[in-house]
């Protein structure tokens, strides 16, 4: 197991090699896909990518937090968080260790 980190540049390189776009356009498209997903979530809509997983939103209510250093109580404002649920296809891929 290699334990490297895949980045935008690696994905863009794959598009360049597999789809035949220019390197610049490959990089732009990786960005467009991520932007489209992010903007949809910001707009309050969930995103479902079949055989990969789904990104949904959860609203968290206001709660009281505490500054760990000073012990002062501070209200934590209500916020939205993204929840990712992997599809079975993705989970299966991750667990098949080429056995």
């Amino acid at each position, binding site marked *: *197991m290699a334990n490297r980190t895949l980045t935008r540049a690696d994905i863009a390189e794959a598009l360049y090699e597999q789809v035949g776009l220019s390197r610049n356009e490959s990089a732009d498209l990786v960005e467009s896909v991520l932007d489209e997903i992010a903007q949809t979530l910001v707009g309050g809509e969930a995103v479902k990518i079949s055989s990969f997983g789904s990104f949904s939103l959860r609203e968290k209510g206001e709660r009281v937090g505490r500054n760990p250093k000073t012990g002062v109580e501070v209200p934590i404002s209500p916020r939205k968080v993204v929840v990712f649920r992997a599809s079975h296809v993705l989970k299966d891929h*991750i667990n098949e260790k080429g056995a």
Partner: protein
Amino acid sequence: MTKSELIQRLSEKNPHLYLRDVEKIVDTIFEEITRALASGDRVELRGFGAFSVKEREARTGRNPRTGEKVSVDAKRLPFFKTGKALREKLNEGHGSR
């Protein structure tokens, strides 16, 4: 939004590309992420988020209905952590900070 709607929207914004190319692009992106996770790598998309794989050890579980013991195999699970920029954008206009 589903994957086909994502492909549709991208295709409208990139009229110079064939629909089948946009499909190939979207599929390739998620295949690359899947492949990296399957080989135990992390995927870091700064501003958007990071995907990683966590190991769960084998354990003895219990059937909650019958109370019977069952062994649960070790497994690997994908995780996603939202990036800072996206987290902030989701909560813009919520005030306080």
